[in-house]
């Protein structure tokens, strides 16, 4: 039987207090009475953002939203939908929030149930190459509202009140940044959108630009109006050709409709956007390095103060924000700062987009309200670890972040709580690690990346990360020495304290957090020359079991001549000659070779 109805009950903290769970039991009972149990899906979703009208219940198809639902109302609602196909008017609430549209085309409930798509509200719904589609979902209405009804100071106040914090990773209060830039008096101010997204495995910004480029254009135009800028630049990495193409098309279409350029919508306000391509440097995601790159210099950071809001691009006051931050602005203007700040935790408002990757069943892009726990993301949305493997750690924040083991799974997603746990929010990368991965190897992988991307300007980063990497490489090759862990910790702390920019300040994080939570793996690598996950090649040993059929294939392929034996007899590996390349393991057709 296929699903005919989906009933969603809000299970956010506020509705839970008002007994959404008990309501679920009543709903199940009523549905049973009609014999519809197989055709109705009843789910508990995350906070639906209508807390003052809770408990909230949505019935699909038809997207009827009921508010203030009590147990006595449920039989009426069920009867009304199943029999009469008419909603119970008294309880229906009208909620025109922009993000709700995603629930309008509900399906694939397990994945989207606990999400709240605000920045990604149009991704996966509209055609990104059509400005008509964007207009039909109230696109550019926020810009029009701002120009018609609000003064620049009021726009800034609204963004401040919303509690929005920079989504690029640092989490600086966006409204405050706008205020600081607006305050400067200058004939030219710049607005920059940081679309460099250098984190390996992160694709939040790419998806936003490829799925809904207009929201960024609109957000930037609103920002420009608020701070008094007429020139905007999107700095986007060259490795995103489709995103660049769609953004260019969107900018041209927006100009054609009069949303960009001189005298926008006959208001006297002028603003235009140009695109600048990056050239493959991770460090250019750092704001001062990015600014230098746009100016034509090598992308290297500089000390702050002065901050870009005072003296940025070409020494003019510059407002630079991440793609996701810009994507949230139209929603804050249309749905209000009060509503936006009702979502999330006390210090981290709104939602965050995460790129779930690694050893998890449902990889993908998820947007969740702040305050949701890591466990809910991994097991409810991500559906857990595949192949029945055991969860080992979750890496948040990309190469600048840390690895958190199982005991931190109930940490709430929030800038402060993640930092307290020893990791960072970062730009939103989330990599799930299972028991088959070696933590030392993972730390080495991230450090290799950041070491390679170091611009070289300051010694702690340039030299320090190189030395840390040398030590880590030795450890993974079985040449770890007594005192290596302490050296790594000392070096790491020193690099963090003395590096010039964020790249250096956060490069040691993966190493330090894996030492903190998985010290035993380091000790095993160094003292026992053992890699428990079986990943570090040099620490493995191979032996032939009695499944051996004596076919001699392994003896023939062994590059070191380490295998001896005669035909039809069990062969043997000489551990002294073995170079641990693993070729014999791969070639054996009888699975007779064992890895230790």
């Amino acid at each position, binding site marked *: 039987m*296929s*699903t005919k*109805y*989906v009933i969603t009950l809000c299970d956010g903290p506020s509705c839970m207090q008002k007994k959404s769970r008990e309501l679920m039991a009543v709903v199940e009972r009523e549905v049973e009475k009609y014999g519809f149990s197989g055709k109705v899906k009843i789910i508990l979703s995350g906070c639906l953002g209508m807390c003052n009208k809770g408990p909230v219940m949505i019935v*699909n*198809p*038809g997207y009827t939203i009921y508010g203030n639902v009590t147990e006595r109302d449920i039989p009426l609602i069920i009867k009304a939908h199943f029999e009469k196909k008419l909603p119970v008017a008294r309880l229906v609430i009208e909620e025109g929030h922009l993000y709700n549209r995603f629930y309008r*085309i*509900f*399906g*694939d*409930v397990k*994945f989207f149930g606990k999400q709240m798509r605000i920045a*990604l509200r*149009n*991704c*996966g*719904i*509209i*055609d*990104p*190459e*059509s*400005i*008509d*589609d964007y*207009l*039909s979902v*109230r*696109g*550019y*209405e926020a*810009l*029009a*509202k701002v*120009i*018609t*009804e609000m003064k620049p100071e009021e726009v800034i106040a609204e963004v401040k009140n919303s509690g929005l914090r920079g989504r690029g990773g640092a989490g600086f209060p966006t409204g405050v940044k706008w205020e600081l830039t607006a305050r400067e008096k200058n004939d030219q101010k710049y607005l920059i959108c940081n679309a460099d997204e250098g984190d390996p495995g992160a*694709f939040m910004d*790419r*998806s936003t630009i*490829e*799925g*809904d480029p207009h929201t960024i254009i609109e957000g930037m135009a609103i920002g420009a109006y608020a701070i008094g800028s007429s020139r905007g630049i999107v700095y986007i990495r060259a490795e*995103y050709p*489709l*995103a660049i193409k769609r953004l260019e098309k969107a900018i041209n279409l927006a100009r054609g*409709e*009069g949303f960009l350029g001189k005298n*926008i*919508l*006959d*208001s006297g306000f002028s603003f235009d956007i140009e695109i600048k391509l990056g050239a493959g440097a991770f460090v250019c995601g750092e704001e001062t390095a990015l600014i230098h790159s746009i100016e034509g210099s090598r992308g290297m950071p500089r000390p702050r103060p002065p901050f870009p809001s005072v003296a940025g691009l070409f020494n003019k006051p510059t407002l630079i924000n991440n793609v996701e931050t810009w994507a949230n602005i139209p929603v804050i203007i249309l749905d209000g700062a009060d509503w936006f700040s009702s979502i999330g935790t006390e210090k981290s408002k709104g939602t965050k987009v995460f790129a779930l*990757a690694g050893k998890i*069943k*449902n*990889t*993908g*892009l*998820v947007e969740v309200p702040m305050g949701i726990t890591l466990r809910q993301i991994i097991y409810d949305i991500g559906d857990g670890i595949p192949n029945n493997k055991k969860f080992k750690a979750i890496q948040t924040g990309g190469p600048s972040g840390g690895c958190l083991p199982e005991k931190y799974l109930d940490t709430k997603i929030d800038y402060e709580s993640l930092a307290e746990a020893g990791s960072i929010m970062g730009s939103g990368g989330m990599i799930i690690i299972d028991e088959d991965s070696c933590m030392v190897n993972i730390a080495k992988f991230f450090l290799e990346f950041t070491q390679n991307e170091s611009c070289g300007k300051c010694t702690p980063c340039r030299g320090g990360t190189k030395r840390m990497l040398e030590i880590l490489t030795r450890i993974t090759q079985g040449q770890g020495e007594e005192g290596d862990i302490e050296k790594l910790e000392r070096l790491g702390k020193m690099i963090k304290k003395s590096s010039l920019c964020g790249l250096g300040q956060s490069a040691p994080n993966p190493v330090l957090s894996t030492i903190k939570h998985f010290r035993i793996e380091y000790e095993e690598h160094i003292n026992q020359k053992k890699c428990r996950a079986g990943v570090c090649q040099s620490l493995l040993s191979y032996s032939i079991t009695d499944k051996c059929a004596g076919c001699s294939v392994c003896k023939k392929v062994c590059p070191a001549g380490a295998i001896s034996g005669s035909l039809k007899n069990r062969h043997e590996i000489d551990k002294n000659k073995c170079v641990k390349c693993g070729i014999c393991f791969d070639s054996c057709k009888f699975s007779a070779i064992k890895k230790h």
Partner: protein
Amino acid sequence: MLTPLEIIQKKRAEAINRIIGKGYLSKKRVYVGMATCEIAAGSKDVMEVFQSAIGNGLTDVYLSQKGCAGRCNFEPTVEVVEEGKIPVKYGKVTKDKALEIIERHLKKGEIVKEWVIE
């Protein structure tokens, strides 16, 4: 002189008209994900299958592309939306599966349950 808000309302109404003119009110609406990851998984071929079906006379279907739906492990995805019904999301759609979906779901109204992402 119209205020910017009034200009926007007008533009929005015109945009909706144009979309309806392209067939938005068709019985079935089909969306194919076309972001970089979807294209890498093969969604361009899938889109072409639907386009040629419409070119060959498939009626009452509105076809559109959409951005990243975020369902990375199920790409390419195709969504079929019908007014008054729960939308059906197909995952891991290949050229052959697309042809089946056209025959069974679009022409005969039969949902191909094995490929639906629940």
